[in-house]
């Protein structure tokens, strides 16, 4: 009898998702609210179960497929809670557009299940399974507004490119399997530390795996899908894609490159450096030229991914925990920014252009202030938490002697500061093009306010979260 306790959150989530799927069939159009409620309850309870079954050391179960360690606890809790917030933001937007269908939540829940599987994966097989579950759900979510041509186009592009990337990842895994003779990450790590000369084919495997990961993260030059998908998908879906899956993508990096192949760090470090430099450069520079805010945020994401990978390049615990901190902070910031776009959109109007933010201070000073905090944080201005996130990863690479890399990253983030500050300038110094009242439901208002304030509070008191990240990586 295997130990099922550590897998309980996933089992619960799966059961509930199936239940919601069935319930959705039998609930009338006017009672869709129940599906939403059930989804939220499921996410919160899942988070509680994750916390309840947490373990202070590595606990490998299910014949080596599954692991429960401090990192998985932290990431899973954040995945569930962030997803819950994402759904709060999305609900009104979807209702306005008569898209508040059960499928959105069911697909979302399956995607979350996929992420949690990835986070807790202990073999390449379960990594891949989680990844595909996540990806397939997301393809469908992008196409969710199926009458919209842009939405469908984005979904097809995403699907085709995603398939190529998955195949490359799979090919890389098979090469690694061929050399080490195991799918189990711990055994792979064991095999790679053998003293004998390692075959070149391993490097080829690493390249393919890095390509697969880079695609999922959206690092240059595997980023082409990001702007199109961000822009094409309904904003509620963009919010989902842009935020929570980044936590899972970080887990993907950690499980494959660190847990499995840290012995090959000298192979993947330079590859990541190339990706980082390309990402911060292209992401920041091209974002300047965008007029569509969703597209601009897509490029901003690309540059943030560059920063996120900086910590991994350091290839030590301090770097990993810095990256983890960056990922979580980034997720919180993205949610807030897209949350505001959802708030500004209403029936028959999509807040998509940068100009839609003009004069926000006149329309609603509180939201303008929160957005100001979010933008400062994205740009990395103290005392917001974005500063500490950037500081931590930069410190990690500098301590490893890659000063040039830090300089490049900082230079490009200075260029990037321009388009964040431009938004602030528009909010505060330009006259609004649209002076209509912003109407918001209470729950969204509260969540968005908290979202913005958390960014500020974490900036003033970042210690707790930093220490938590450090502990979950195994230092501190």
């Amino acid at each position, binding site marked *: 009898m295997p130990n099922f306790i550590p897998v309980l959150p996933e089992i619960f989530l799966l059961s509930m998702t199936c239940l919601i799927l069935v319930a959705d069939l039998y609930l009338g159009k006017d009672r869709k609210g129940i599906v939403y409620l059930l989804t939220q309850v499921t996410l919160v309870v899942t988070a509680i179960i994750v916390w309840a079954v947490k373990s202070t050391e590595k606990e490998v179960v299910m014949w080596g497929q599954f692991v429960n360690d401090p990192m998985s606890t932290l990431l899973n809790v954040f995945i569930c809670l962030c997803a819950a917030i994402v759904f709060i933001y999305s609900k009104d937007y979807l209702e306005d557009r008569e898209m508040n269908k059960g499928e959105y939540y069911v697909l979302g829940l399956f995607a979350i299940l996929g992420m949690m599987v990835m986070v807790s994966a202990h073999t390449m097989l379960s990594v891949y399974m989680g990844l595909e579950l996540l990806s397939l759900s997301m393809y469908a979510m992008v196409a969710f507004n199926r009458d919209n041509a842009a939405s469908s186009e984005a979904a097809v592009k995403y699907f085709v490119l995603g398939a190529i990337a998955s195949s490359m990842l799979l090919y890389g895994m098979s090469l690694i399997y061929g050399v080490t003779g195991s799918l189990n990450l711990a055994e792979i790590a064991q095999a790679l530390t053998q003293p004998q000369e390692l075959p070149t084919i391993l490097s080829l495997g690493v390249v393919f795996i890095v390509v697969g990961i880079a695609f999922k993260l959206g690092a240059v030059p595997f980023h082409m899908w990001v702007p*199109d998908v961000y822009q094409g998908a309904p904003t509620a879906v963009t919010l989902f894609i842009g935020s929570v899956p980044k936590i899972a993508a970080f887990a993907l990096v950690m499980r494959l490159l660190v847990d499995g192949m840290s012995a090959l760090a000298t192979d993947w470090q330079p590859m990541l450096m190339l990706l980082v430099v390309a990402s911060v450069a292209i992401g920041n520079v091209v974002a300047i030229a965008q007029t569509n805010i969703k597209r601009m945020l897509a490029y901003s994401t690309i540059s943030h991914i560059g920063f996120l990978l900086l910590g991994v390049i350091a290839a030590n615990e301090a770097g990993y925990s810095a990256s983890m901190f960056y990922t979580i902070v980034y997720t919180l910031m993205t949610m807030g920014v897209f949350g505001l776009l959802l708030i500004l959109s209403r029936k028959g109007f999509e807040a998509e252009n940068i100009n839609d933010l003009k004069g926000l201070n006149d329309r609603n000073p509180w939201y303008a202030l929160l957005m100001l905090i979010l933008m400062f944080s994205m740009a990395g201005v103290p005392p917001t938490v974005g500063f500490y996130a950037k500081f931590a990863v930069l410190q990690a690479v500098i301590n490893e002697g890659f000063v040039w890399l830090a300089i490049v990253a900082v230079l490009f983030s200075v260029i990037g500061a321009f388009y964040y500050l431009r938004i602030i300038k528009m909010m505060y110094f330009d006259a609004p093009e649209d002076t209509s009242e912003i109407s918001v439901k209470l729950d969204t208002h509260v969540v968005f306010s908290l979202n913005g304030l958390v960014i500020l509070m974490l900036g003033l008191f970042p210690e707790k979260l930093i220490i938590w990240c450090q502990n979950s990586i195994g230092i501190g």
Partner: protein
Amino acid sequence: MKGLYLTIALSPLLGAIIAGFFGKTQIIGRKGSHIVTIAGVALSCVLSLYVLYGFMMGNIESQSMDLYTWLLSGQYEFKIGFLVDPLTAVMMSVVTFVSLMVHVYTIGYMHDDPGYQRFFSYIALFTFSMLMLVMSNNFLQLFFGWEAVGLVSYLLIGFWFTRETAVFANMKAFLINRVGDFGFLLGIAAILYYCGSLDYGVVFSKIVDVYNAQTTIEIIPGMEWYVVNTIGILLFIGAMGKSAQIPLHVWLPDSMEGPTPISALIHAATMVTAGIFMVSRMSPIYELAPAALGFILIVGALTAFLMGLIGIVQTDIKRVVAYSTLSQLGYMTVALGVSAYNVAIFHLMTHAFFKALLFLAAGSVIIAMHHEQDMRKMGGLKKYMPITYITSLVGSLALIGIPPFSGFFSKDSIIDAVHHSSSSFAGVAYILVVAGVFITAFYSFRMFFLVFHGEERMDEHTKSHLHETPKVVTLPLILLAIPSAVIGILVIEPMLFGDYFTGPYLKALLVDATSPIHALGELIHEHGVMGMIVTSFSHPPVWLAISGVVAAWYLYLKNPALTGKLREKFSAAHFVLEKKFWFDELYIDGFAKGGRKIGAILWKVGDIKLIDGLMVNGSAKAVGWFSLIVRHIQTGYLFHYAFSMIIGLVLLITLFVIL
């Protein structure tokens, strides 16, 4: 105790916030503003006096406590905390007491001013800042308080911001203080570097190791300086700015552009003495830095002497008091320079009372004269303003050091300390401070006679309105006159020669056999304060003070015609004093104009052409251009996207596998 100290520090801040942010609202208003600020400061004052009493009775212990950690940076910890010991208690009591008096006085002085609430908010904020400065247990918070009082001083000098002279004066004060603060900051940085902490306790124990190791620092190539001396001098440069010592004194006379109550509070009694307090607080460092002490002694003696001289030729009533303040600050600095820190603090305290009194009395005269400050247009005010007259007399007697007024005890102790000091500069300093006594008496009573005696030189209109000022003005005068008269006789024994200054960091403040004033201590132990008074008549200072008064009387009341003759005869000397030794000209025409010229060149060539033109706008254009090009790579075609992935893959394989 933590709660008590927090209340002392924060209650003025609360008053400042209420008056500052809500003073213009209906609920608070003008009356509410002065009520909340006065209540805050009064509470602070009462509690401070309780603490002081506790230390005198010995039932409160010296205590250093950390409130919270503000910042952790690598190995450095920056904390916010309080160190309350007898020295702090004296400062707290002086600050809050004078501040309270000034608050009450302000009700009368600023009665018709539209910025009434703002003024109360500022002075309450000042009280908070000053308390943070004196109660700090680390250099970081000290620096915070230091800068905060500087800021409030800046705001208050320029309180009447529509006057061009006021704006000029506050700018001047701010800039000159920057020079001092630069040294101060370097000193703090050196302390952090060599001691690894900013906490007083840690620094004072580590500095001994630095001293014993004879660590040196080479600032100018080829010149090795002891680190402790360097730190001492750097910190003292900060004190020179704040406490207006030569050559950084030029801002203080101009600061008289501010309303008179703040001249009394900030530019006489409290803020300007921050430098004196700081050096006393750092006495464990200075005791290891003989060269720094020598420097302090010379600077102080020169300030005491030269600034007194300038005071003789001033005609503005407030400026006379301002130069007198400079000169008295010089005396305190001299005391520091001969390691008589407790005497410096003693003089600081007595000076706070009598100088605040003199300023407020001057303010009272100014109110009565309808904001006329020129002494040549006053005279004979004695009969119109009896309370102001008597209190001014008490203040002046205290200032010039006539026994048994408070200033006598503190100033005589300083002179005695210099006399018995073993410092190599003590001989020169002694001559300067003794000569200073005569000068002090002369300019003080010149002012006193010009204002209150002699013929009435004001115009008829003013004369017809002359009357004593309201109670809110005279009450503080009376309340300040009492300590000005008696505080010296009451506290000299416990404060200077008793064991009041006991505490872990106050060893240098206790009098022992090596102290320059121990002979005076023995005298007082044997014969009491009367012994000191009697003995003083066999020494020159008291006679010099009396002769200064007589000289002023002769030249300005008895035989005014002689004054003009003397001025003609010594026109060169008079000119030098009128020009205030050309310090202002040196700074404004030399440093300021020269700096602007260099700035203009750098701006036109470096900034506009190189940085703006080439680097900033150039690189921005390049980025924009690049961005537009790269944007076109995103064609929207799926096969292009796939192609880019393949290129990426091939690139990675080529770079990292094949090569």
